[in-house]
């Protein structure tokens, strides 16, 4: 190997090792909604890396090397918690060699701690499927939860980065005003949805149902986390004869075959709700997420 190629190799190696030259707070967001929220509150003071996208099931993500690298450099992880990320986040925390993001540290933010969780089981057993002892983790489908988490997240950002405390507080205040107004709008728009019967693919919408007064009459998964079976789908179809529903809904990442099958036979629309930021063309940000969700549901109610 020539002298020059050794030098250039060394230069390459050094280049790879060089620290990114920005002082912004590095945030690893486990789910897109929290990435979007952290961006709203942190503005240019934060750099966000999204661990997952809207087409990935956050239950089933792998502790990929790319995520490990980001966890190592993160000043903060912003995740749902309530065991949603239990299959991969513990590995990232264990192997990242990063004390800042360990459980219990300010850099480990679990959104579910700041809202009232639904479906907290009194006893758990795996024969019931993939149940979460801490309650249903899909808290982001109720925008009021987003508001609560925003408040807590802004406080946490200020704790970690006190130099920009005023900035985060101002952003949080501005966001809260816009958000609360938007929530009122969505609630007014969604008034016709109250009492509407729906079928869901996975028990991922309890917070949405609770917010808008939707009535979940059946789930396509026989048990949480267990893909729909033919027999169970037939049962749901039979049930819909007695107890009709207006739509069958699923998250952008769910396999569509079960709900399409049912929709065709029950003559109801199969709705793909964005579920998180990026889950549809209109769900470009948190506001778009609920604009689209409410509109899609209304389209089924009409």
């Amino acid at each position, binding site marked *: 190997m020539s002298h020059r190629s050794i030098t250039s190799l060394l230069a390459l190696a050094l280049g*790879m*090792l060089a620290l990114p030259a920005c002082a912004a707070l590095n945030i690893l967001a486990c789910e897109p909604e929290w990435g979007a929220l952290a961006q709203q509150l942190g503005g240019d003071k934060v750099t966000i890396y999204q661990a*997952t*996208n809207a*087409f*990935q*099931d956050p239950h*089933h*993500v*792998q*502790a*990929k*090397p*790319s995520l*490990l*690298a*980001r966890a*190592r*450099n993160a000043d903060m992880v912003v995740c749902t918690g309530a*065991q949603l990320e*239990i*299959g*991969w986040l*513990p*590995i990232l925390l*264990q*192997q*990242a*060699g*990063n*004390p800042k993001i*360990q*459980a*219990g540290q300010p850099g480990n933010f679990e959104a579910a*701690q*700041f*809202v*009232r*969780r639904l479906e*907290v*089981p*009194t006893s758990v057993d*795996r024969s019931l499927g*993939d149940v979460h*002892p*801490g309650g249903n983790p899909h808290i982001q489908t109720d925008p*009021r*939860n987003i*508001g*609560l988490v925003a*408040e*807590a997240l802004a406080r946490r950002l200020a704790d970690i980065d006190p130099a920009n405390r005023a900035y985060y507080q101002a952003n949080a205040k501005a966001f809260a005003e816009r958000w*609360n107004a938007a*929530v*009122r709008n969505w*609630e007014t728009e969604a008034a016709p949805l109250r009492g509407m019967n729906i079928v869901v693919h996975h028990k991922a919408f309890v917070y949405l149902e609770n*917010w808008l007064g939707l009535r979940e009459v059946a789930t396509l998964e026989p048990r949480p*986390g267990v*893909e729909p079976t033919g027999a169970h789908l037939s049962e749901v179809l039979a049930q819909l004869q007695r107890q009709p529903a207006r739509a069958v809904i699923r998250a952008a*990442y769910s396999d569509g075959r079960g709900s399409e099958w049912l929709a065709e036979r029950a003559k109801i629309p199969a709705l793909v709700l964005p579920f998180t930021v990026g889950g549809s063309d209109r769900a470009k940000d948190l506001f778009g997420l609920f604009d689209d969700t409410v509109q899609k549901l209304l389209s089924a109610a009409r």
Partner: protein
Amino acid sequence: MKIRSTFLLAATLLATPLAASAADDADLRALRDEVARLRESYEIRIAALEKRLIQAEARAHSAETGATSAETPAATPTAAPAGANAFNPNVSLILSGTYGNLSRDPAAYGITGFHLPNAVLGDIAPRRGFSLGESELGLSANVDQLFYGAMNFSIHPDNTVSTEEAFIQTTALPQGLTLKAGRYFSGIGYANEQHAHTWDFVDQPLAYQAFLGGQFNNDGVQLRWLAPTDSFLEVGAELGRGANYPGTERNRNGAGAGAIFAHLGGDAGISHSWRAGLSLLATAPRDRQWDDVNTAGAAVSNSFSGSSRVWIADGVWKWAPNGNGQVTNFKLQGEYLRRVEDGSLSYNLNGVLPATGSYAATQSGWYVQGIYQFAPYWRLGLRTERLDSGTVDYGSNNFVLARPDYAPSRNSLMLDFNPSEFSRLRLQYAQDKSLRGVTDNEIFLQYQMSLGAHGAHRF
């Protein structure tokens, strides 16, 4: 006397109600006043409380307008176990069992050209009929703010129990550093760190069996460093006892094994991710014995002392459409192992004529496997592998020991069904040509179940 006391008693009895009725009005007034005062004070306090409640409600209301059900920001306390056992470590239990149908007697199992001690052969030889698979009990928890600890017991088919891993690991070292101490699976290669219940086949690759005795665990210390880069770069070094094959127990101070490894990895688009690595394991076996047959066909016992180096190049590539592997996904994994051993060999024919000469061997092997999930819950896997017995120089013993020139190989096909994240049923067929001139057709049925704490798996 008697009459007077009776009179007095009667007078007292009579006097009491009289006195009471006299005091009645004043007392009642006092009582009424007292009650009124009490009521007044309670009313003031209740009013204050109500006022505070209204204020609190107003604050909560202004915080998240219109919120009703989500109004209580306080976290719902999950039903956490109370008392002393709240700090019990996470417990996970792996239950596994196999049924093997082999066309050859596994008592004669071996890998031609690769000198494996009897204990290793016993571990890696397939078993016929029903047997318990590697069933594991694992305990793990954070020790405190600085350390994490974990232990894994393994119950083997022959009813022995071993400690696969028992280590402590730092969680608070900065700069991407992690220090581990105790007994652990070495970080070399890709498959070495994976517990049996995450293997994609019933058995480990031939190259792992031939060069590492299946899987190399070590008592020692390990330091890992994760580079502060956006792409994944990890390097690690280990020092340990090296008592396990290819090393041996040594009864000496210092380290009997050292290892270094480096891993690179990243994503290619949303759907692909990969990791590649290079590792070196160096051990210093002393008197590592195995049974062999000399050129005259007589049973001999050989032993090796010297240095053993195993190089491993590994790579894994995973594909899932949009990074969502729920319906379909694919994993391609391959490793190349090369072992260089150098030292002395003691040739022993029934203990009558021990002859020590030099020994130098360079041997290698590889495997490639692909696992395809073609439908939810169903995976199909194919593994192909080959060993190269390479060059073996017995020095002065070359005239009594034949140099191997055979390339052992094995092809395996497996189908598994995973009704949930926690259970797996597997069918595997293998054509095993580990021994020269012998083709063993193997069929395995296996179950693997995991109970207790939800495990998080490595990439």
